[in-house]
């Protein structure tokens, strides 16, 4: 059929003469075809991404949960078990009303030893450090504000200087037993339980850690006290 059309004009004697114009200029394509190409492509790509997302989600969530559990264990000095409390409408509760929103709610972990005695609470807090936000998990006794420990969950401080807030063990370990609100000092007076020695060369990062801890204790202490009150009633 197409043969008739091509051989129509006598000025085009061979196929060689017919083909060049076709390749030299691409024919007009209708907008609908372009739209269809992108729609089909987009739908296929979307399906593929959703499939892989569904397949990898459990592993990614499992990892996040395991990491959280490790951090809670570390900052509460190995509790036998802990309750996860959700902050909903300004009140801490073990069982938030809407189950689906659970992931987005701020959380506190209340740790207990083997005898059921309360060890303390662990909370996460995030504030600017030297370069970017520093995310900490902080363990403390809610009634007295005494710190148990803290762990850096995420930081982008200067390597070799600011990242000592995570790596310098003498800096990290001194927080245990200190009482918030903390004060950062260059040389510590051993008798003052609120003083914390800042790291030389990482003063801003050290102060950021102290500020984050102070704010977190200030924020969570009344919430945890209210929860205790409601529980003992």
């Amino acid at each position, binding site marked *: 059929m197409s043969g008739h059309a091509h051989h129509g004009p006598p000025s085009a004697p061979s196929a060689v003469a017919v083909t060049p114009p076709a390749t030299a200029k691409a024919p007009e394509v209708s907008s609908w075809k372009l739209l269809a190409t992108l729609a089909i492509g987009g739908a296929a790509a979307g399906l593929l991404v959703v499939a*892989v997302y569904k397949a990898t989600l459990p592993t990614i969530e499992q990892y996040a949960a395991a990491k959280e559990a490790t951090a809670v264990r570390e900052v509460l000095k190995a509790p036998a078990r802990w309750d996860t409390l959700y902050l909903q409408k300004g009140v801490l509760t073990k069982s938030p009303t809407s189950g689906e929103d659970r992931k987005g709610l701020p959380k506190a972990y209340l740790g207990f030893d083997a005898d059921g005695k309360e060890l303390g609470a662990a909370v996460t807090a995030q504030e600017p450090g030297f370069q970017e936000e520093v995310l900490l998990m902080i363990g403390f006794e809610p009634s007295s504000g005494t710190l148990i420990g803290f762990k850096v969950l995420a930081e982008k401080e*200067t390597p070799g200087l600011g990242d000592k807030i995570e790596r310098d063990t003498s800096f990290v370990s001194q927080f245990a037993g200190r009482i918030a609100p903390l004060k950062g000092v260059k040389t510590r007076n051993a008798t003052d339980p609120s003083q914390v020695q800042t790291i030389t060369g990482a003063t801003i990062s050290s102060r950021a850690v102290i500020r984050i801890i102070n704010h977190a204790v200030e924020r969570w202490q009344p919430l945890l006290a209210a929860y205790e009150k409601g529980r003992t009633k």
Partner: protein
Amino acid sequence: MTTALAHSPAAALDFVPGAPPPATLRADIWRGIAAENPVLVQMLGMCPTMAVTNVLANGIAMGVATTFVLVGSGLFVSLLRKYIAHEVRITSYILIIATFVTLADLLLAASFPEISKALGPFIPLIVANCLLLGRAEAFAAKVGPVRAVADGMGMGIGFTLSLAAMSAIRELLGRGSLLGFDILGPRWEPWVFMVLPAGGFFTLGLLLITAAWIDELRRRRRALEAK
């Protein structure tokens, strides 16, 4: 290396619009590793090259993720080249590339969470790496799927090797370690600036000088042989 390069004619180095000249598969792969190395010769993808090469593990992970996207997008761009209308080709290539980048991001997060966290937004940003769109437009869209995959492999390996070289130098001098293992010992005072952005520029400069020097030596030898 020299035997493989012999397959690729010197004329292939000159960019001609239209289809790339025919070459053996080995030449297609080797092109990206040596003669047209993405980082050292084409100077594409400088952003991830600077940003993630502070430690070796990050550099390798970035290279492998980019290779995955290069091969995957090259294959699909080539397979669909007859169905993608000229007018929407860039949009379609970006769609294909973005899909593979998302897959790479998810798979990395599920298999190597620590590295995925360290690389942060730089994996999603592969989509904006001009190397990807460049290979799709200049190569994959004009050849069959086998050649497109070979080219993606070669470019990916070349990219990975460059990033690995850069990050090995930076981690070794900046932290005294390689892949986290202490190499230079406790008496080594780390050159902190090597893991900071300045060290990235410094190392890249050194590598570019070295690559240009090797290239120059080879050109002189070739000129002598021709006489």
